[in-house]
C-alpha cells in the first residue's frame, strides 16, 4: 500500500533521515517507533509533502508522492493526526470533524458559493458520517460545543475523529495517546482495534510501548535517522540494536 525506499532528508549538515525504507501492508497496523530525535516527525512531514525529501521515493499504491503538493497527497488517500493538537478552537466539534471531509468534494469555490445540488448533497452525507465518527469516539453529546472548551483527552479524540472520518487508505496517527489517562487510552485503542477489524490500514507513531506491542502487526524502529530494525513486535523487542537505542549501550555483566 504505502512504500518508502531510500528516503533521505538533510537539514544543512544534519542528516535527519538516512536512506529509510519500509512498507505498510494493507489492512495492518504498522508502528513507527524510535527515541526522541530519531526522525519520526521528519518522516511524517516528508510523507505529507510538508517538507521535500532530498532523495528516495514514497509511493502510495501506484502514485509517487514525493513531488506532489500536500493537498494532492491527501486527496490520494492519506489522513493524519498531529502530535500537538491542531484544531480550530472557536468552531464547533462537528465543524472540526467536517473539516476532515474536505477531500470528499472537489475544492470548488463556485460550487460552494452557489450551493450547487452536488455540493449540498455531499454536505448532508458528510454531516451523517461526521456524527457517526463522533459517536464512536464518545463525543456525540458535545457535537455543538466549541472545540476549544474540550478537555485534552477529548481534543485528542476529536483529532482522531477528524482524521478517520474520511476513511483514508492509510491513516497516520502521530502519538494518539500521549498524555491521555487510562480510560481515554482505552477508547482510542478500542477504535484502533475496530479499524483493523474493518480492514483499514494504519501507520502509528507512538511512544507507549505497551500499546505498540499489543496492537502493531509490524514495527519499524528508527534511530539517528536510520532504520535500525523492522519486524513483528516480539522480534523487535529482542533486537539488541533496539535495546541499545532505547536503553543506551549496556555492558554485559556476568
Amino acid at each position, binding site marked *: 500500500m504505502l512504500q518508502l525506499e531510500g528516503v533521505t532528508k538533510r537539514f544543512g549538515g544534519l542528516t535527519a533521515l538516512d536512506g529509510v525504507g519500509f512498507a505498510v501492508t494493507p489492512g495492518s497496523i504498522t508502528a513507527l517507533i524510535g527515541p526522541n530525535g530519531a526522525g519520526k516527525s521528519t518522516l511524517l512531514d516528508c510523507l*505529507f*509533502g*510538508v517538507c521535500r525529501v532530498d532523495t528516495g521515493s514514497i509511493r502510495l499504491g501506484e502514485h509517487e508522492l514525493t513531488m506532489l*503538493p*500536500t*493537498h*494532492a497527497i*491527501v*486527496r490520494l488517500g492519506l*489522513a*493524519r493526526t*498531529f502530535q500537538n493538537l*491542531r484544531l*480550530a*478552537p*472557536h*468552531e464547533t466539534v462537528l*465543524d472540526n470533524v*467536517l*473539516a*476532515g*471531509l*474536505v*477531500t*470528499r*468534494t472537489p*475544492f*470548488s*469555490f463556485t*460550487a*460552494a*458559493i*452557489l*450551493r450547487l445540488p452536488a*455540493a449540498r448533497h*455531499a*454536505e448532508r452525507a*458528510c454531516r451523517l458520517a461526521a456524527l457517526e465518527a463522533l459517536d464512536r469516539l464518545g463525543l456525540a453529546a458535545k457535537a455543538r460545543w466549541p472545540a476549544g472548551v474540550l478537555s485534552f483527552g477529548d481534543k485528542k479524540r476529536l483529532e482522531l475523529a*477528524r482524521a478517520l472520518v474520511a476513511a483514508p487508505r492509510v491513516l497516520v496517527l502521530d502519538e494518539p495517546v500521549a498524555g491521555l489517562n487510562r480510560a481515554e487510552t482505552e477508547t482510542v485503542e478500542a477504535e484502533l482495534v475496530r479499524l483493523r477489524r474493518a480492514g483499514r490500514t494504519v501507520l502509528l507513531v507512538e511512544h507507549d510501548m505497551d500499546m505498540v506491542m499489543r496492537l502493531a502487526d509490524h514495527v519499524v524502529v528508527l534511530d539517528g535517522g536510520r532504520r535500525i530494525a523492522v519486524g513483528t513486535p516480539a522480534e523487535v523487542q529482542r533486537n539488541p540494536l533496539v535495546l541499545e537505542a532505547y536503553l543506551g549501550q549496556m555492558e554485559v555483566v556476568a
Partner: protein
Amino acid sequence: MDGLTRSRWLHFFWSHRLGLGVLAAAGAVLLFPWYTDNPYTLGLTNRIALMSVAVVGLNLFMGCTGQISLGHAAFMAVGAYISGILTVHAGWSPWLALVVAVAAAAGFSLAIGVPLLRLSGHALAMATLACNVVVHHVLLQEDRWTGGPSGLAGIPPLTAAGWAVDDPVRLHFFLWFVVLVVMFGGLNLVRSLPGRGLMVLAADEVCAACLGVPVARAKVVLWTLSAVLAAVAGSLFAHTYGFVSPDSFGIFVSTDLAIMVVLGGMGSVWGSVLGAAVIVLLPEFSELAEAYKEFVHGGLLVAMLLVAPQGMIRGIRQAVALAWWRAQQGRSDAAA
C-alpha cells in the same frame, strides 16, 4: 403545544436558521422605506450597504486566510474610477462600465496578488498598504483622466428597465438587494465543505493543507474574490453619488474596512454588515467621532481586540450561551 410539536418546531428553526435569517433580513430591507423615507436616514443606510459589499469580501479574505489587507480601498478605487472614466469620458452605459471595471479590478488584484500573497502577516499588511498609496497617488497625478484632487463629476446613475436608480428609496432597494446576494454567497461558502477547510486555513496553514485545502490557490482565489467585491462596491459608489475623488479611497478607508471586519468578527458574514453599520453610524452619535475619526476608530479596534477578539456577533452569541447555561445551572441547583 405538546413537547414533541415544540421540539419539531425548534428543530425546524435550528436547521433552517440561515435561510430564515436571510429571509428576515430581506423582509426588513423591503419594509424599511415604509418605516422611514427620510432621505438623510436612507443616505446613511445606503452608505452602510455600499460598505457592506466590500467588507463581506474583505472578511472572506481576512477570516479565511488569517491575513490582513490594508489596501482594499485601492480595489474600490479601481472599480469606481474605471466606471467613472468609461461613462464620463467615453460615454459607455453604466452597466457595461460596471462589468468592465470589476473585470479590470479582478485582473489587477490577480496580477499583484500572486507575488504579494507569498508574504504573510505584517509584511503582507504593509505591502497592501503600499499598493493603496500608489493607487491613490496615480489618481491624484493622472488628472487628465481622473480629474486629479478635485475629483471626477457627472457619473450617470445605473438604470433598470427605464428607471434611473438615483433617488434614495430606489437606491435603498437596489443596494440592499446586492448586499443580500453577496451575503447569501458568503454564507454559502462559509458553511460548505471547502469553507470548513478554509476556517482551518485561517489559523493553521500546515494543518489545512493536510486536510486537503490547496493553500496557495485558496489564498489567491479569496484575495481576488475580495477585490472583485470591493470593486463592485466602488463602482456602485460612483454611480450612487455621481462623483468620486481620490480621498474616498485613501489608506484610512482601507483601515476602516479592516476595522469593520474585526468589529463584526473575522469570518462572520453577518458581522461584516454590523461592523460596517457601527463605523458608518458612529459620527451620528458624537461630533467627536467625526473630528477625531482616526483616534476613535483606532481606539475602538484596540478595545474590541481586548474585550471580544472574536467580534461582536460571536461575542454576543457566546454571552447569550453563557447566560443560558448559568440559568440552567441555577435551575438544577435549585432542584437539588
